[in-house]
């Protein structure tokens, strides 16, 4: 038997081959779909993705030293940075010339602020020399080194010049080193002194407290999801409202509620004193520490654990457990060997979601955490508003963002973002 050979291709009504016609229709459909998506995608890319990228770029960008002190940097190249001597006179002359230009635009204060992250106290030096340098005549007033020394003898400190040289490149890894509590001295990476080493500890604390919160939400969420999944739909829907209400309630309302409940003169301490469990002078410290953050965040993130667990458990057929029991399994064995493994995808989905949301939390640690309960986000906010160290904001943000995006990718692989359910 031979295959029927079709020499004539199938044709659509207008005479074009069917294949071509189909491809054209599909292409048109794709174009239409993309056109519908385009406005929003453009909006998000421009208004969200690009700004974040731009901010992260600040973590490597380092134009200010080279732009403000171009001739000084050039002169410094000839200086032996490993020596313990101040740079030669030509460097000071170049610096005086650069500063005279910089003073007009106040660029020297910006430079001072930038270098201050690496060499503390340098802001004052630059501000002071800025006032002096205006009166100098570059052609006749040399040599300049003694004049700088008159202003402040720290100008002769080789460490200061090494700091200037180390940050003279247009791009720097300095912020990332600072973000992991390291610093570069003469091209060698060293740890920062203990009193300046906060970030690794904060990253660590953020991670393990998020794990703890994840665990607490799982512990409290699993029984609730199980109950909801085994109840009749009508009753489950009613109880689900109790889960959704906290979800819909303002985060600040919930945080202020915990602040009111947990404080020393708050409802919980009052209650414990009233029933005689605590003496009036032995009130518990429940807030402004790690405990407060864990309690409040477990409460706030609990719905994000319950909802994915519930949607997975709803699909587990009750007949499996019944079959296990009829084969002689005890209640515990039937649950642990048959039901629990089927609920693991829900645990994964809920745990990753809670962890992703927890590591980025800012408001709750800020309000109920105190100094011992603050997260890395609080440090980023401090670097932004308090210290104005925007490069470090970018570097810390980039590390946090990479961690979150990896988890997001894992979440997408395991659960699929399309399957996120909101009630």
């Amino acid at each position, binding site marked *: 038997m031979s295959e029927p050979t079709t020499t004539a291709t199938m044709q659509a009504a207008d005479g074009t081959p069917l294949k071509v016609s189909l491809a054209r229709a599909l292409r048109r459909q794709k174009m239409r779909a993309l056109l519908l998506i385009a406005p929003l995608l453009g*909006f998000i890319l421009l208004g*969200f993705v690009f700004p974040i990228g731009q*901010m*992260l770029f600040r973590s490597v960008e380092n134009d200010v030293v080279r732009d403000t002190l171009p001739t000084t940097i050039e002169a410094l190249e000839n200086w032996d940075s490993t020596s313990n001597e101040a740079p030669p006179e030509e460097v000071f002359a170049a610096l005086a010339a650069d500063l005279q230009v910089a003073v007009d635009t106040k660029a020297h204060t910006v430079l001072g602020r930038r270098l201050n992250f690496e060499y503390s106290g340098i802001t004052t030096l630059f501000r002071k020399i800025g006032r002096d340098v205006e009166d100098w005549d570059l052609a006749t007033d040399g040599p300049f080194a003694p004049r700088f020394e008159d202003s402040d003898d720290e100008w002769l400190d080789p460490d200061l010049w090494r700091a200037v040289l180390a940050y003279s490149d247009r791009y720097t890894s300095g912020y990332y080193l600072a973000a992991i509590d390291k610093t570069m001295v003469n091209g060698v990476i060293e740890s920062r002194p203990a009193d300046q080493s906060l970030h690794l500890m904060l990253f660590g604390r953020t991670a393990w407290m998020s794990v703890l919160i994840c665990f607490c939400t799982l512990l409290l969420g699993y029984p609730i999801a199980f*109950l909801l999944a085994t109840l009749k739909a009508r009753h489950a829907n009613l109880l689900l409202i109790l889960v959704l209400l906290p979800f819909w309630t303002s985060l600040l309302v*919930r945080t*202020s509620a915990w602040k009111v409940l947990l404080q020393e003169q708050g409802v919980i301490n*009052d209650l414990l004193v009233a029933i005689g469990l605590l003496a009036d002078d032995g009130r518990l410290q429940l807030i402004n520490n790690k405990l407060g953050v864990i309690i409040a965040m477990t409460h706030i993130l609990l719905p994000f654990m319950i909802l994915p667990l519930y949607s997975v458990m709803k699909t587990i057929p009750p007949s499996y457990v019944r079959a296990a029991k009829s084969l002689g399994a005890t209640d515990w064995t039937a649950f642990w060997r048959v039901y629990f493994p089927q609920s693991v995808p829900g645990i994964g989905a809920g745990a990753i979601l809670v962890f992703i949301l927890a590591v980025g939390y800012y408001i709750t640690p800020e309000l109920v955490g105190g100094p011992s309960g603050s997260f890395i986000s609080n440090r980023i906010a401090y670097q932004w508003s308090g210290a104005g160290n925007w490069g470090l904001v970018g570097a810390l943000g980039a590390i946090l963002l990479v961690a979150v995006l990896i988890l*997001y990718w894992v979440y997408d692989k395991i659960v699929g973002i399309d399957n996120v*359910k909101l009630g």
Partner: protein
Amino acid sequence: MALPSYASAGQKIWHYSFLTICGLIFFFLIFPIMVIIPLAFNAQDFFTFTPEMLRLQADGYSLKHFNDFFNNPDWYRPLYNSLKIAPMATIVSVSLGTLAAIGLSQSHVPYRRVIMAILISPMIVPLIISAAGMYFFYSWIGLQGTYWGVVLAHAILGIPFVIITVTATLVGFDKSLTRAAANMGAGPVRTFFKVQMPLILPGVISGGLFAFITSFDEVVVVIFVGSVGQKTLPWQMFTGLREQISPTILAAATVLVTISILLLITVELLRRRSERLRGMSQG
């Protein structure tokens, strides 16, 4: 989960202790929110129950914190600002989000996964990073500290919720309905408004309510992107909680809880309506 009549004593004990545990967890979920409401009616400036309140005496309660909330410019101006920003942010995110969700639910969308991941990302990226990024960008283009700057920033944060709810509604959408409409001579625009829109409307409204509550509740981004002129209610609560905690905050919280309950009920009713429309309801 009723207990069978042949259950052993051990099973009975376990069953009732399980229900008790669940009851306690529900209590943990709801109590902190509910406890705020009676405390807001406290006649004293305390954050705990006074003996008068516990004895249910009328003079232990008063409306003075609510009075302060609605008459003190420190509180009603932020409320007004929130009510001005949230609806506009909702309109932006719902209109763009619904169009994109319809696009995404077509059968042949190239790079669907990547696009979806980008559109959902504002929900995932830590707020402090979004806020700092938007601050620099919006200062650069001159929108920092303006009404529209805050509206656009909040619209971006609301979009993932619109995308999630609307695509969920579209999953159950019967495409033959739009084909039938096209067959009978309706153009794409007419089909959209007459056939598709009424059916996905519950999902769109829920998405809109999510976007609204996101903006209405947002504090980090508005602090970075906004200025004092756009101070919203959550912002005022945040400063109140951080600096000097005044009991008016409890009145504000009570108002917000009431709004959330109303929104939640609306969304629940819409969800049921949508399931009924699509014949997916279980009763």
